[in-house]
């Protein structure tokens, strides 16, 4: 490649132009993203608090402190529960909605707009509406539970239900995204596969789903799970405005703990260590996604 470009006339001019064109973006990428990401990692090995004149090396001190910090463990556990509840629900409901939308002729545009609207709207404003939906006496959720004879509670103030209530908001917000991505995946399935199946005499809806749709949707499924999982790990807005991590740390999640430590208590290095933990989980999702997609490509 390098040889060929050296041979063609004007190669040097082309390379110079390319560097000049790429330079502003490359610089900004380092200054705003990659550099700070490296800096977070380095900071997490120091003992620095914002405003202090001296910065000392702390080794893995911050991480040892995290391991001993019950709030951190609670926060990590809550985040994992939140992700564990909202990802399967979002992906399952999103897939269901996508299959239904693709199976009806009329009204597709309306359904797509209705399901996607929450993705495009201001989560912070909608979180406040959800606070009202969860109101312990007049909220829609409370009234619906009462109507079918189930017990109700003050959803966002009860430590047993607060995290689940936030997960419901997360599912509501991301469902449309999962649906739209699945619709794109469904449209990519070649029609002749269904025709071939019909030739075999197996043309029931379930057979079509089990033998064609589900196997062909594999890569899209992995991709959607990864996207929704990463978005769910970033849960912050609803916590910050509705519960502030309470009641009694029941909704304390990683990013909220990070902001508390790093910006409210100004324990910068400790906040950096929490950021690193957060980053490691996010990267793990991407690695899992790549491995799964690779295996499919080889044996699928």
């Amino acid at each position, binding site marked *: 490649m390098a040889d060929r470009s050296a041979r063609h006339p004007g*190669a040097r001019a*082309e390379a110079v132009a390319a560097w000049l064109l790429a330079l502003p973006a490359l610089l900004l990428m380092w200054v705003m993203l990659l*550099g700070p990401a490296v800096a*977070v990692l380095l900071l997490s090995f120091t003992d620095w608090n914002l405003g202090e004149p001296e910065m000392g090396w702390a080794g893995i001190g911050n991480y040892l402190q995290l391991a001993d910090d019950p709030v951190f463990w609670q926060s990590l556990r809550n985040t994992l529960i939140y992700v564990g509840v909202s990802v399967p629900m979002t992906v399952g409901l999103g897939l269901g909605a996508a299959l*239904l939308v693709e199976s009806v002729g009329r009204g597709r545009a309306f359904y797509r*707009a209705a399901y996607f609207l929450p993705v*495009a709207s201001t989560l912070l404003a909608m979180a406040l509406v959800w606070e009202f939906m969860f109101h312990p006496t*007049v909220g829609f959720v409370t009234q619906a539970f009462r109507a079918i004879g189930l017990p109700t509670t003050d959803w966002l103030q009860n430590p047993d239900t607060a995290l689940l209530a936030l997960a419901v908001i997360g599912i509501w917000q991301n469902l449309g995204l999962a649906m739209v991505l699945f619709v794109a995946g469904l449209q990519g399935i070649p029609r002749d596969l269904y025709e071939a199946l019909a030739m075999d005499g197996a043309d029931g809806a379930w057979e079509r789903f089990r033998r064609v749709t589900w196997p062909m949707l594999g890569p899209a499924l992995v991709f959607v799970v990864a996207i929704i999982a990463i978005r769910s790990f970033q849960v912050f807005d609803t916590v910050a405005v509705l519960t502030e991590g309470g009641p009694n740390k029941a909704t304390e999640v990683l990013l909220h703990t990070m902001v508390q430590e790093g910006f409210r208590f100004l324990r910068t290095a400790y906040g950096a260590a929490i950021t690193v933990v957060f980053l490691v989980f996010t990267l793990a999702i991407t690695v899992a996604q790549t491995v799964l997609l690779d295996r499919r490509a080889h044996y699928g």
Partner: protein
Amino acid sequence: MADRLGLLLRHALLLGGAAVMLAPFVLMLSISLKPPGEIFAPEFRLLPLQWAAVENYTAAFTKVPLLRFLLNGFIVTFCIFVAQAVTALPMAYALAKLRWRGRDTAFLLVLAALLVPPQVPAIPLYIALWQLDLLNTYAAIILPSTISVFGIFLMRQFFRTVPDDLIAAARMDGLGEFAIVWRIMLPTAAPALAAFGCLSFIWNWNEFFWPYIAVQDEHLMTPPLGIAFFSNAEAGTNWGALMAAATVTTAPLAIAFLLASRAFVRGVTMTGIK
């Protein structure tokens, strides 16, 4: 007959789902029209018996500088999109169409940067802005978002589909690489750029995490921050006005989405399936 019944059932399920998805929006509008006494009535009514829309929306615009929040939202999203487009387009062109040493490394860096969630750089950026004495300014909100690696990636994928002949012809006409980016590639990229613009607008209008950290001054608050500020100040006492403010904040996005829902959805699906 069974087919018709099945179709009817599927529509019923989809309509039920759509009702749940839209319920919060309906509730928001409904509350924003009601006087305090009717908001907590045990029986829900869509429309108020006694209209309080004027009171609620007036309160929303006077108790907090809501107009200022909206203006800040437009300033911030506009500056961010311009900066993102101006930096992403040339780099995407260089990655997609030019041969240079370091291209593969540069693209790997873009892919690596795509994996970094936007919250990760927050602490170092905060320290840097603090040292430059830039916290609590528009610059503090805008600067970290001036680069969109997602935008670079999206535009690169798009530019790869542009035929090489088009560029070769432009070179024959004596156009330099810079002129090619702005006079040939930019017009052909308009649909992709529009899709990216929609996404950039939603993200940055809705962004709460970073402005929440970087800005305390009421006059610099973006709409989500302003709403949170209003909600804190009212502490659940003035639902009508709060929902009026929420409606006003969500409206620009909802309108933009309904007008351009195709571009939105195209932008979202372009991100990965390919």
